[in-house]
Every structure is written in structure tokens, then in C-alpha cells.
């Protein structure tokens, strides 16, 4: 793992950010290698990893990483420096949030290991809770905004505290 030296440009045409919607849903299953790689690379987008480092860090079988990295790069979900380091993309707020939610999921499952309730203990008697999002909710979605720096946001008014 190294700090990336060169900001990447993708092999294909660059993305027009005026047309790109960062709120497009991420549907990657958490148990897949894709999700594991995104979780690693988006924890700090300033860090670049070689494929070998990613394989070692995530304890993935040999031969599975390069293909997944290539696909993620082709899908423009991750960047690659000229010297072969893979990294998260600064402008992909959606993937950063996805990575954060994976970390939160890990935390939940680690802290609360046994619920004491298995799926077998819950009998389905009606319809599933899964629901389509109303189309009007998908229109005019907010885009992420940067927050002010801490000292511009909150100032100390009582030095004694």
C-alpha cells in the first residue's frame, strides 16, 4: 500500500460529471469480491494498492483479484495509476457511502453476534416488506454537498471549557 503518486485517467473516455448521477443505486452484494475490494479502496481514496496487496489484505484466492479489478476499472468504479496502483475515486460519493455502510454492517454483526432469532424462528404469514420506491421520490434527489471546515463551522466561545 502506498500513497498514489499520479492521479489516474481511465483507459476509456472520461465521465461527463454533468450527466453522471452519483445517486444511481449500488446493487453489489456485500459478500462478493467486488464489494470487498470497494470497501478496502474507498476507506481512503488517497491510498493506492497493487493487486498483490489487495489479494493479501483481503485474503482472496490467487487468480481472482486481477479479473475483478479489471472489471471494476472498466465499470469506472475504481481508478488505476499509470504505475498500476488501484484506488477509490474521489468523486464517487455513492461508492464511498457503500463502503461505509459495509463497515457499519461488519460492526453490527461483530458487536451483536447472536440475535437468538434465526429465520426459522420467524414464519412468513403475509407479503414481503420489499417495496418499490415511488417514482416521485426518485426525482430531484439531492446531491452531496461538502461540509464547512470545523473551524468555519463551530467556534469555541468559552475558553475555560
Amino acid at each position: 500500500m502506498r500513497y498514489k503518486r499520479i492521479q489516474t485517467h481511465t483507459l476509456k473516455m472520461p465521465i461527463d460529471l454533468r450527466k453522471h448521477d452519483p445517486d444511481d443505486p449500488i446493487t453489489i452484494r456485500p459478500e462478493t469480491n467486488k464489494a470487498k475490494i470497494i470497501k478496502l479502496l474507498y476507506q481512503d481514496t488517497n491510498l493506492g494498492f497493487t493487486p498483490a496487496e489487495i489479494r493479501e489484505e483481503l485474503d482472496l484466492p490467487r487468480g481472482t483479484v486481477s479479473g475483478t479489478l479489471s472489471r471494476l476499472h472498466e465499470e469506472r468504479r475504481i481508478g488505476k495509476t499509470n504505475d498500476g496502483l488501484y484506488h477509490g475515486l474521489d468523486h464517487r460519493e455513492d461508492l464511498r457511502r457503500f463502503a461505509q455502510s459495509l463497515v457499519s454492517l461488519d460492526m453490527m454483526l461483530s458487536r451483536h453476534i447472536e440475535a437468538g432469532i434465526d429465520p426459522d424462528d420467524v414464519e412468513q404469514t403475509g407479503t414481503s416488506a420489499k417495496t418499490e420506491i415511488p417514482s416521485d421520490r426518485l426525482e430531484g434527489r439531492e446531491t452531496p454537498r461538502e461540509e464547512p471546515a470545523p473551524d468555519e463551522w463551530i467556534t469555541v466561545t468559552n475558553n475555560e471549557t
Partner: protein
Amino acid sequence: MPYYYPQGSLVFAQDPTGAHSNPRPVIVISDVNRPYVEQETTIVCLSTQNEYSHDVTQLPHEYVDDVELQKTSYVMPWAIYTIPLSSIRDNLPSGELTRDGLELVADSIDGMIRP
């Protein structure tokens, strides 16, 4: 079509790593107006245990529609997380809290955060 789980859904979240054997039952507390609703959801955990330093709230079986809880279950108001929507397994049972159930969960969380 993008989907979500409405506020009050009782669903199972799956361990993505396989390190823990059982999916975990959780209740969705965010609603459709939540930012990034098509990508993630905010949940509170359920447990069958009730001996914690903080009070837990029993969830009566009649407060859940579309599924039947076969074990006494408690809401743990301090166990609130944001998880990816794709970690919720739609091949496992899922139901929805009644209005009384929603009020009970809200009161449980309110009891923790209100000074």
C-alpha cells in the same frame, strides 16, 4: 425498479463474510425520504436477550404483521446502524410493524436519546 424497505420493516441482514453463521433480524427505522434510500437503510437490532445495562423494550408478537415471531424479542435502542440495502435478504421472512409497533420502537429510541 429501485426498491427499499419501508419504516417498520422487520427483515434479516446477512453476514457478508461468512464469519457469523446466522442472519440477523433488524427493524428498519428510516423512511422513504431518507437520503440514499435506494442504496442504504438505517436499522435497529433485535435480540432475544434482555439483560443489558440499558433497558430493552419487548416487541409484542401482535405488533408485527406478515410474519410470526416465535421467540420473545426485544428492541436494543443503542444498536442502530446504517447498512447496505443489498445486505437484506429478500429470500428470508420479512414483515412490517403495526402503528403500535412503530410507536413502541420510537418510544424505545426516544427513551435513550431524550435528556
